[in-house]
């Protein structure tokens, strides 16, 4: 099968293993971050296994309704987006095990596949017929158009820098010393990309899309039970998968699971910290923010490469 030159059946269990590790790591890490956030705010916070409880509870719920085909498929799209993203990106550098299916494409595939889940989710939310869902989608899409821009510029800058679109090669170029990280070789691109990172992690100040503290609003409004379970799974998987990309591109990647865990946690924590200290933006405010700060940095990044 010429389309899969590097394919071996052995990759399937390894990919599943990667998936398993990442999901569990995500479960614990997001709970931990929430707990830290609560503690900072003087509250006790949730137990560390809270995510598992939620997941099980949702799966076990008996009330199950459907608003239609797209509604039904949306969580599938969503989770496929997360899983696929993870699988299209090499996780652990230098390990043949954890290259996943990254030969299917390169950085561009990863960047565009991010939208796969978003699109599916938006469609499902749309079909649910709940106006709040649609409002959430509207906000989310509006915000992401600008939030993604600095990332695109940053990625463009580093792919020019490394003259490749291959993630593995980019990670390879950053090995050796901490100063080979893109963070240090191309700080502007990194900063630009971090704007996008912060902007798309659905955390304050950029979390108006799901507006967690208000009446239920946002794309998932109508979702419940096992739909919500799938989405919750994605909610822990997807940030990690995305963080992996940033890690690979800007922070030297990871050569083992420990490094992986630390780097992902630090990066994820970054958004949490910002979220704790910064109040929420309205959508137009965040758009303006990215235009005012993210864009110029991105432009500088591509000009100075």
């Amino acid at each position, binding site marked *: 099968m010429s389309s899969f030159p590097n394919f071996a059946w052995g990759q399937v269990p390894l990919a599943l293993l990667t998936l398993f590790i990442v999901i569990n790591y995500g479960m614990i890490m997001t709970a931990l971050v929430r707990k830290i956030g609560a503690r900072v705010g003087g509250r006790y916070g949730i137990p560390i296994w809270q995510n598992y409880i939620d997941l099980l509870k949702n799966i076990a719920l008996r009330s199950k309704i459907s608003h239609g085909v797209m509604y039904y498929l949306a969580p599938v799209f969503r989770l496929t987006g997360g899983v696929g993203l993870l699988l299209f990106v090499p996780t652990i550098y230098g390990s043949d095990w954890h290259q996943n299916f990254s030969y299917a494409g390169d950085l561009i595939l990863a960047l565009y596949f991010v939208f796969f889940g978003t699109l599916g989710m938006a469609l499902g939310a749309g079909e649910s017929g709940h106006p709040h869902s649609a409002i959430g989608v509207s906000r989310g899409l509006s915000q992401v*158009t600008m939030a993604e821009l600095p990332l695109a510029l940053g990625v463009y800058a580093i792919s020019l820098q490394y003259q490749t679109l291959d993630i593995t090669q980019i990670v390879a170029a950053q090995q050796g010393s901490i100063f080979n990280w893109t963070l240090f070789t191309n700080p502007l691109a990194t900063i630009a990309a971090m704007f996008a990172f912060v902007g798309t992690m659905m955390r304050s100040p950029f979390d108006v899309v799901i507006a967690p503290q208000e009446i239920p609003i946002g794309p998932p409004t109508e979702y419940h039970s096992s739909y919500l379970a799938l989405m919750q799974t994605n909610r822990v998987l997807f940030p990690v998968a995305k963080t992996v990309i940033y890690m690979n591109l800007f922070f030297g990647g990871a050569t083992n699971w420990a490094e992986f865990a630390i780097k992902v946690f630090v990066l994820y924590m970054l958004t949490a910290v910002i979220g704790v200290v910064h109040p929420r933006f309205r959508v137009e405010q965040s758009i303006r923010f990215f235009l005012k700060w993210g864009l110029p940095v991105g432009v500088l990044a591509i000009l100075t490469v």
Partner: protein
Amino acid sequence: MVSPLLILAAGLGAAFLLGLLRQTSERAAFYVTIAALGFMGFIALSWTVGLALGDALPVMITTAGTAPPFAINLFMGGMEAALISVVTLTGLLSAFYMRKDLLRLGRRVMAVLLVLIMALSGLIMTRDLFNLFVFIELIVIASAGLILLSRDTRALGAGFKYLVVSQVISILLLVGVIFTYHANGSLNIDDIPARPMVFTGASLAIFLVLIALVLELKPFPANGWALDIYESAHPGFSAIFSAASGTAAAFAAFKLFDVAGPAWLPLATGIGIVTFVGANLLALAQSHDRRLLGYSSVGQIGLVLMVIGQADILGATLPYVAGGILISHAVAKSGLFWLSGLVKGRELSDWAALRDNPVLIVAFATFIAMLTGLPPFPAFYAKWALVHALMANGAFALTAAFLIAALIEAAVLFRWFGMAIKRESRRAVVVNLTYEAVVLLAMGTSFVLSWIWGAASGQENLITLVPLLFALLFLPLDIFPAKAKNLLAIAGLVVWFALSFHGLDPIRLVFLIIMVLGGALLLLASFHAEGRRMGFYTPAMLMFAGMALLITSETSFQFFAAWEFLTVGSYFLILRGHDSEPHALSYIVFSLGGAFALLAGFALASGGKFTFFVSELSEIAPQVAPYVFVLLAIGFLTKTAVMGLHIWLPGAHAEAETDVSPMVSGILLKAGLFGLFILLLEMGHQTLYGIDLTVVLVWLGALSAFVGAVLAAFQEDAKRLLAYSSISQMGYAVFGLALMNHLGWLLALMFAINHFVYKSMLFLAVGGVKERTHTKLMYKMGGLITLMPYTFVSVLVGIIAMSGVPPLSGFGGRWIFYNAIMSTDLRLPMILVFMSGPVGFLYLFRLIHSIFLGQPKDELRMVKEAPFWIVAPQMLFVAFLIAFAALPGMILRRVDGYIGQIFGDQPLTWSGRIVDSQFGTWNPVAIWGVIAVVFITILLLLIWMNHNAQRVKQFNIVFSAERPFKPQTTHFAWNFFAPYRKAMGFLEAPIATGFWTGVSNALHGTAEFTRKFYTGNGQTYAVQLLLFVVAVYLIVLGSMGGAS
């Protein structure tokens, strides 16, 4: 060959004979008149044919048995014969046309008509200066008589004004004649020596003669009297006054300018162009049909005068050019005047009455196309030759003025046509078989003339082109049912493809497939139309003919002609849409503007050579090359609707019919792209003022991609949304092309293919929805997913493909895009392109959400799936998209190889189904595989977990824990991206629209202001006439002072 003198003798003799007939037998008098006119026409025609075929030689006719210059002599050559044919035949047809009024007023008026036609023929033939004057006086008096044919009492005033002005003219003429005689010792025109343009002695005398003859041509602005006549006279007479008198007077002026020498030509040029521009400008402000035709006549004759002024440049082609314009004008204008008799109201919009009779609409369209110089009519060839000559001689300002005025004229005429097609007619069309027969004869003549001019062009004879004939074939076939015609049309396209695809390079082949086979595919959707669908197939096939010819064209002439065909065809198609009148107008104006830029560009490139191969673009001199590039690029960019030149597109595409929108969007836009391909292929990088023009194109492409997308996101109208999306998509394609590297081109080609597929699909889908919901406003829809599932699927696939989300083919485009921009030095424009990607996502989501998702409206709860024939092509497109996404190599590989030959590199390697570039990998099958496996796995998981999910009604939602009051209000769709608009709304500022509206308003304002000049007072007109003479005198005097 009978002596041409018999033309005069027959006219006069018959006129005198009428007096001998018995008073009561007006009918007999009428037949005598007709017979005499017919005889005159026969002589003229037989001479025309004889001279053209070489059976006869030009002949000098002496009178009184004495050689010139001692006796008056006449000359009959090719030009004379042709123009006398025009004059006499116009007279003959008008006589038929005015039959009732001629009989009413009796034989005296018939005699006057005969004398008028006789005098016009004499004016053309005579070679004697004073004889010229006599004929002019005869014409004036006869015209003043025929004005009385009108039942409009205002015509009396017009006739008197005409007499007043004519008096002034004849005074000037006589003074000029006598001093010319004194200087030359002869009254013979051929004895007038060439003289310098100075204002002393003999030169001043010839100036007076020339200016008097020019005044007979009604130069702007000394022409108010003529307009009053046009407005009030009998249409049959107006036809003569415009076609026959204008022709004869123009030829008289030509005769004099011909002998007066090249020094005087600038006079003709200047007055001619001012008239052409001024008259067309003022026509903008007209709402009265005949007065508008008057302005147009004045303008056309001005144009002829301008052409006469180019005698030194045009040389032997002058008769061809001037004749082409003059005869086109004569036929078309008389046709229009005759047509005006069939319309009761005098407002332009009253011509909507013509819709009662489709044949008349065809005639109307023919005449307008003829006047505006569209192919295959003679003026098209003339325009081609003229612009080539002008550009080759560096007359750029003149060319620009000419083209701009021609554009204004086209705007005026097509606006009128649009009104006729779209407005409500308050009064029925006049039923008069004689009128109709005369109009149809004129129409038939126009096609005959097209053949003649084509045969004499030295280029391809456009009227004999099979695709064009095929399109015209549908005119008589229009009486058959639409479904039969549709079958024939599809068969025609497929056959034409089979005949013409051999030997094309892969790029052309791709475009040919899109345009011809794609057209056939889209025509499947037309099977849904019921009834006869009059007037659809001719324009559609004309458009496809243009596109088919465009791809296979080799010379610039073929290219340009094809371009005009597709422009005109698509205009008529777009005009069919429901509210398309203003949009079709702006479409045709922009398209023709772009076409004129092309014309100028080709003319400049060819250096005046008429046969210029498109492939020679690569060899033109470096000092003109950048300008050629700019002109051609403007032409093509207008078609691709680049930002700034885009304002025609949204309306035109959105208002078109369901199956027309995909044609004009999915297919027609590719014509511009194809042009850019050719342009960049042949000319590559060009530098103007140190700026690489391809960089400008990159920026324009990127800007269009971004702003188009932003604007699309703000639309409420589904079809407008798609239209703006086209602007954005074409922006990408232009951007890719302008990158001028291998991958950029591949990107553009991929966009061409993809855009064709998904835009056709989406337009069909949205069109299908509109068929059912009767609205295009998305917020009035909602929840249609269950009612129109197939349409939903095609929209879903369409938007996934378009947004570039893997795994569908749009992603391939993005992947190539990133690889392309890696190999270029340009960076800043990328920002815009990067931004436009996610914004594209916005409008696409909005499209699918607002229509198919959310809460359905009560009134739309019962709508059915779109008609089968609209859905069927969509499903074919869906299949294609999926196949193309998995196996892009099946199309792209060959093209990639060909582009590699052009650039001499091969950045992509195709191993199996994997594509590798220097920078990365694209493995479409693997992507499909992974995504499919993951998706299916999770889906199965979900089904396992909640197989027993209960389907609930659509409005059974939580809505903050309360049931919504009314389901209708819960569909969040209007102003969907309100937050985005708050932040980015400034991009919506209608700068381009504002600019073009400003231009339009300025033109209208100028017209409105300037026309106040025509006070209607005969005395004022006479003063203006003198003012004109004096102004010309002073200007020439001033320029002489400057020159010496």
